[in-house]
């Protein structure tokens, strides 16, 4: 009994009209309208001429409407339905991009949160989707950008490993720290974190008495990174003066590893032509602001990332 005239009889709009409306909405960047049209197209003409293209556009529309989860599931659905479609690489690319954006979370843009110390889960998903794209469709048009983003993700994940390694050095869990270092050396070869990893391995192995392992790490380090300054990761114990004066009198904070190369910033640099790498490579000096706020704000004197 349709009390409120509930039966939805949809007037029959031809396939072509819906598709054109969707395309114009996309061009006008009215993404929610585009999504609505594309969904209508799929419901009414599930196997029509435009259904595959509609599903691809839907992935893009959700992404720009910043619904990453919906975009990723639309991409998954497309991959499942059309395994050998000729521009399926776009779907993989978008899957990688959605988790890439999710990793640099909303807060990171406004608060000084260093995502290399946060949950690497999204970064791992993104890395996986991108690597599927690269080895299945090496000559896809998205390969170069994917390459760059994977390099960024590798740096980010490597830096995360170094953070954990430095914690375990502070904790004096030497084997744990060494293994984290080894993980970087074995999995993230061409990242700026490798020298730190080797330094940690060397120091940890010496602390635990495996001097020959330590020596081989140092040999590799000095061979490949001659200008790297080895500095202690394990903290000396605190003297009373330092504890009472809140480190104003002397800085023994272990240096935190290099910041990863960030493609967006790199692009920004190329755009404004400045070649001077950001942040400079002040060594050792902790900014005044950083001291006062105990390492919360301001530049903490980390070694600037090496010029690309």
């Amino acid at each position, binding site marked *: *009994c349709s009390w409120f005239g509930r*039966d*939805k009889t*949809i007037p*029959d709009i031809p396939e072509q009209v819906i598709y054109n409306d969707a395309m114009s909405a996309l061009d006008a960047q009215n993404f929610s309208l585009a999504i609505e049209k594309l969904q209508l197209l*799929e*419901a*009414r*003409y*599930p*196997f*029509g*001429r435009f*259904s*595959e293209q509609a599903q691809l556009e839907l992935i893009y529309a959700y992404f720009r409407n910043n619904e990453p989860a919906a975009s990723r599931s639309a991409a998954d659905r497309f991959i499942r339905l059309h395994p050998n479609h000729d521009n399926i690489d776009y779907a993989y690319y978008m899957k990688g991009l959605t988790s890439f954006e999710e990793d640099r*979370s909303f*807060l990171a843009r406004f*608060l*000084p*949160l*260093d995502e290399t*110390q*946060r*949950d690497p*889960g999204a970064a791992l998903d993104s890395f996986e989707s991108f690597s599927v794209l690269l080895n299945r469709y090496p000559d896809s048009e998205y390969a170069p950008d994917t390459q760059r983003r994977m390099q960024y993700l590798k740096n980010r994940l490597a830096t*995360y490993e170094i*953070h*954990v390694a430095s*914690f*375990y050095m*502070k*904790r*004096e*869990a030497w*084997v*744990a720290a*060494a*293994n*984290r270092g080894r*993980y970087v050396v074995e999995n993230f070869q061409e990242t700026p974190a490798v020298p730190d990893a080797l330094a940690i391995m060397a120091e940890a192995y010496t602390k635990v008495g495996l001097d020959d392992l330590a020596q081989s790490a140092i040999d590799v380090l000095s061979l490949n990174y001659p200008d790297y300054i080895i500095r202690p990761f394990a903290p000396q114990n*605190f003297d009373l003066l330092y*504890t*009472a004066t*809140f480190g104003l009198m002397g800085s023994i904070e272990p240096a935190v590893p290099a910041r990863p190369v960030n493609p967006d910033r790199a692009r920004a640099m190329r755009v404004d032509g400045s070649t001077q790498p950001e942040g400079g490579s002040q060594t050792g000096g902790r900014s005044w602001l950083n001291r006062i706020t*105990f390492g*919360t704000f301001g530049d903490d004197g980390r070694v600037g990332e090496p010029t690309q």
Partner: protein
Amino acid sequence: DNVFVVNDIRVEGLQQVDAGNVFRNFPISTGDQVDGPALAAATRQLFRSGFFEDVQLVRENDVLVLVLRERPAVAIIRIEGNKAIKEEQLREGLKQSGLQEGDIFRRATLDQIELDLMRVYTTQGRYGADITTEVENLPGNRVALNINITEGRVASISHINIVGNTVFTDKELTDLFTLQLPNFWSFYTKSDQYSREKLSGDLERLRSYYLDRGYINFSIDSTQVSLSPDKQDVFITVDISEGEQFKVADVVFVGNLVVSEDVLQSKLSMTEDDVFSRREMTDSQERLVRLLGDQGYMFANVSPIPEVNDDNTVSIRYFIEPGKQTYVRRIGIRGNTRTADEVIRREVEQMEAGVVSSAAIERSQTRIERTGYFRSVNVETRPVAGTDDQIDLEFIVEEQQSGQLSASVGFSQSEGIILQLGVSQENFLGSGKSVAFNVSNSSTLTEYSFNYLDPFFTVDGVSRGFNVFYREENFDEDDRGDYNTDSFGGGITFGYPIDDFQRLSFSGDVEFLRLKNNLALQGTEVFDVINRFTQDNGDEYLNWKLTAGWSDNRLNRGFFPTKGRSQGASLEVSIPGSDLDYYRAQYNNRFYWPINSDETWIASLRSRVGYADSYGDKDYPFFKNYFAGGLTSVRGFEANSLGPRYSRGNVSSAQRSMGGNVLVSGSAELIFPMPFLKDKTAWRPLVFMDAGNVFTTKCLKGATQNTCKEGVDFGDLRYSAGVGLSWLTPVGPLSISLSKALNSKSGDETEVFQFALGQSF
């Protein structure tokens, strides 16, 4: 037969389906040489794609013509008449049986639908339900499916009969069941509605009831479920044979005991000639597995095998297989989008590349929960592929805003611009450090304060923090006496754990304070008393204070604890050489007992006692008194309004409490689950009863109106009762309480409604 080379393929009859789909499912392409069987196979494959009702191949000399008739696609599915089960649930059921809008319609799925939907209803005990579907053709080879349902009433249980029970009464056994005869509460509990899962759960409970009381040979011979002819009443008959009650003959450990036998023995809760109980046996088994887990045998397996002897006794053999010594390879942390990895990892007692200990993993989870930064903390263990003795751990946290942000800019004629900005963050920017600064300037309070605490100054959890403040307080506004104090100072504090639960803390502070009397109240007792105090002790004081503290926190969670207790004590002393020489000692404790097994009903008790006095020749400073009343002490009374009073005007009723140097307060609470809401984790409703007051051992000199009563008199304790609610808002915890003062005496200022942001019960 006729073999020919196909030099073109033509398709006829396509409406909906895209040509690409056809060619993808049709193995023959132009230029192939084909014969009869190949064509037949190609037709079958195209048919199997499911797009077409009929596929015919016609040969026009060298052109192969595919004559296709498409299967209709389902455009719309309309479901009518469903009340008890929502449409999405039904549509989900349909999707599972392969039918959703846009799919191809096959006749076979039609009766599959009726069967699936009927099964959804019968599992809910609606045996009287009746489902009919019609297919309505639409233009463009599409169909609409109209499914109409008459749900009928849910069959309710009208007879549960257990036959063969002699040891326990019928009532004792049927009370174990979740299925009950209809009673007053049935409309809410729905316990009278039959479902197969509930019955099998109940039978399991019945079996455990007997097996846990020694009846090892208990058996359920048959279970008969029957319906009345109109299918509205369900009758359940359970035939059992109880067997004899068995005692334990002996307990033996067999296999590779990596731990000494008496340690294993200590974990048993059922030994020689106890009555046999299956639950005790399985509980002991779990404790043994945990014991082995603590020793690093993560994949240990303990299987208890009871052997029935014929003299009504059972001998139990625990067969122990420790498996390999297990190690943790990597510990992952997920879900911390704001909190830094180290802030969580430093709470984890299990080390990477170290022997695994399930006790350490459990303590780590409790420690992370106790930080109060997270709404939920879970840990998963996953074996490492390719090894049989390594596992990876993963701590998954769900972050919760802890701390509060308050900012207000106001203007009132009497006070001018009121500016207040305060940030207090437990987990400041995810750094695990707690930072709070407060800038406020209004008539009652001008304050600039900053305090900071790093709970992990050293990796072992030695905390270090400090605070600085400048404050001008006019106590008149918030009822704490008629004087003003200007003070500034600062201090540092250290704390460190001495075991998993207890911490010691030491801090040193310096404070400069100036006391100003309120000239408007000249001639009143309050004025005289303060005046007399400043005459005897001066009105400016420089104090050096040392405070020692002890805390013992065994609560299971930082937010909304449901179990455990926490207590703490502190002693603040001003060192000789300060202008005032006094000490303030206080002790507080909190207990939580879960009442039911899933810890949604919790009883909690809390109490606080304080004593302060001066030890030199100076008087005890009244502005360091304890206060009582308000949301965090005795609810139902205005904040800080309890305690001995001094009159502040000639009218006798205009009195004001100045606090006291002895504080006694306590509260009993019953916490219950938030009704009506699905996600109950963010709410904590409770009913409470508070009691408390402050007393003074020596009334201030110069008191004339004898309204101030000396000495501690428990008769003066004030009581209140009421209901309270804490809610974890995205900004921070919000608490409100509605309370009734039970024995308020004349002059007490009661308050029914009280609330605070940033404070949780």
